[in-house]
């Protein structure tokens, strides 16, 4: 099976479709409703989640504003309010609501938001490395050994406790690393937003942009890796 999130239709074509009301064919200037016949308009599938929720492509988002916008749009699109409308409008309401829910879920979580932005700006983020981050390589190898030893010891308590203590301290170290990564990510997010705010089109800005995106990608993969190790660890030592 093949995963493709992008369809092949060009953005131009859809731009056109969006500017014309599906019902009365008049121009749609407003956001999601036709000014003339007041019918709900389908949210374009090409619209990115930031635009859909009316936010600029930034990595820092005010959660309260995001939620307020989500609630407003839910009131505009939810199928509950289209029960007495035509079948066409009901279908649009269903599609728009589903899209809105996905958009909100993605932007609400800072990590998902960053992954999504990375995807928008620099192609898929899905190719997350499976090898451990270079600077953690040694440490993780050793941890794997200890984990195996611990599992092999089974229920024997005398062998268990020193190993357990060791794993526990490993866990603390890794969790500290997770926190450090979050801080680094947070810093990169701020750098990205500042760069976008400046809106420069110089070569230097472009290089800076690519550097930040690369670092975000690095950090996100490392974070995922460490997160999986920690949850493995936690489920083993309980």
């Amino acid at each position, binding site marked *: *099976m*093949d*995963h*493709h*999130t992008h*369809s*092949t239709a060009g953005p131009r074509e859809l731009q056109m479709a969006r500017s014309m009301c599906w019902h009365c064919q008049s121009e749609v200037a407003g956001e999601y409703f036709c000014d003339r016949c007041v019918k709900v308009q389908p949210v374009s599938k090409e619209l990115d989640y930031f635009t859909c929720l009316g936010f600029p492509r930034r990595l820092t988002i005010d959660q309260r504003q995001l939620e307020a916008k989500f*609630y407003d749009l*839910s*009131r505009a699109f*939810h*199928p*509950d*309010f289209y*029960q*007495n409308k035509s079948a066409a409008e009901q279908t649009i309401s*269903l*599609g728009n*609501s*589903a*899209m809105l*829910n*996905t958009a*909100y*879920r993605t932007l609400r979580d800072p990590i998902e938001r960053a992954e999504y932005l990375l995807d928008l700006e620099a192609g898929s983020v899905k190719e997350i490395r499976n090898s451990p981050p270079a600077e953690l390589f040694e440490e993780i190898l050793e941890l794997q050994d200890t984990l195996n030893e611990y599992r092999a010891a089974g229920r024997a308590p005398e062998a268990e406790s020193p190993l357990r203590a060791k794993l526990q301290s490993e866990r603390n170290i890794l969790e500290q690393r997770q926190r450090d990564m979050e801080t680094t990510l947070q810093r990169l997010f701020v750098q990205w937003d500042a760069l976008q705010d400046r809106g420069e089109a110089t070569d230097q800005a472009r290089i800076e942009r690519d550097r930040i995106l690369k670092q975000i990608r690095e950090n996100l993969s490392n974070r995922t890796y460490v997160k999986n190790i920690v949850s493995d660890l936690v489920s083993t030592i309980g």
Partner: protein
Amino acid sequence: MARIVGIDLGTTNSLVAYMADGRPRVIPGRNERTMVPSVVAMTDNGLIVGDPAKEHLTRSPERTVYSVKRFMGKGLEDVQGELAYFPYHLTEQGGVIRIKLGEKTYSPPQISAMILKELKQRAEAYLGESITKAVITVPAYFNDSQRQATKDAGMIAGLDVLRIINEPTAASLAYGLQQKIQGTIAVYDLGGGTFDISILKLKNGIFEVLATNGDTHLGGDDFDRQIADLFVKEIREQHGLDLNAYPDHMQAVRLEAERTKIRLSDELKTTAILDLPEDNGRYSKDLTRDQLESLTMELVERTLGPCRLALKDASLTPNDIDEVVLVGGSTRMPLVRRQVQELFGKQPHCELNPDEVVALGAAVQADILSGGTTDLLLLDVTPLSLGIETMGGVMSSLIRRNTTIPASAKEMFTTYVDGQTGVDIHILQGERELVKDNRSLARFRLKVPPLPAGVPRIEVTFLIDANGILNVSARDVRTGETQSLAVKPSYGLSDDEVERMIGESFKFAADDMKARQLIEARTEAEAILMATEKALKQGSHLVGEEDLSSIRASMAAVEAAKSGSDHKAIRAKIADLEKATHHLAEVLMDTSLKEALENKKLSEIT
């Protein structure tokens, strides 16, 4: 728009409610009771539902169905463990459980439809208008098959089911509206057969579900079973009697177990009494609340795991919960209250009647759909992850549990072999890694144009609608054409079968009507035969031989028609007999008048 009612289709009790002047109200029956026991009995005179059917539980246990909700959307293997507890006979056909009642078998949606029809009629009689649209509630943790089965039940009952909503969220609507609760709330719903926990955020009229969890097979029925098992065991020990051989007594045990449990919610000590079969006298048992609590502790503790999981999925701790709301009859148990209070560390709400609050919420949702209430909006979630089978029997998740609905996911499919014309897709629901540990929902075959491997591009959209029910559609990306899919449910009725049952349901209604008319005609025939006998005794000497022989012939004709099953024929013969006795009646009347004049009482003559 026509009125939409709200229905709580419960395991033990069902209710119907409507909205009037911005307030939801439950509709009472003729007996003023608001709850209709979810019991259907097949009697010699046809089907009966509710309180009168409940009386048949001990009279004809093998033909009286209760707790049918436990079988909705299930196959026989799902309930193998508890088959022994049910006195009626269960089979399976096409992945759907069937219940045998007399000659016929019924699917659980058909039995549920009978309960829905009763509620529909109740609403129609009370509101004086025809009711065709409804919102029906289901446990939040119901999977797709169980939701679909509920929708099918509505259709079979002649109802347009505009929305399936979750019971705990319905309850939150009622609380939000009536008690003005705000903030982060936990709704703990323990009914007769199911347990749900839902965590919601209530803010400015938006009811956003953050997470939900539960157990669709845990409720008051299971508590009753613990107590009943104890009674049966003790009766075996003390009297050497195995009650399992007496289905009617087993039902009596179950009902007494429930009554005992309910009494112990108010009292610390009570006595259960049971008549034993075949002159074995009586069994009586003193039970304390403590004893009940140790019998049921394990079951109540089973509700705490799902509560913790829901909190975790919502990224909350018990401290973050502002209010706890109790729903369902079983939350009247002091043990349940204690456990809930301990887990969340706060006094739970129970201002609204826990039996009625779900139906009230369903009526509020009905009003939202009809455009009456415009300031409230419920944003619910799907309780279970949805995915498809991939290589090696592994489930690949497409829509995660606790995703806000409507929710959709797209997946692109292509071929592995040149000229391949189909791709088989298996849809699953559940949280486990392997296909075999999850619930199979449905299968379908995607049609693919014969092309070199990897060239076809078929985009399949999985959409969970606001009812929590899955809709699948497919589009050929190269041609832009959509294709219709024949999705075969793993544990559900096919569309054709539902259609047939809708038809049958009208036929059943007609059959039931016929049965009733036949009974009425026979009763009338009996009455007139008796009256004629009596009249003959008193006045045969007053009429001629010709009259007498015509009367006797007509009586024989009525007698013959009565043993047939054509109510019209019976009525025709009754009419004949009335004609034949016309003269006799007249002379008797004259005599009685004369005698009345002689101060004799009329009643002594006729």
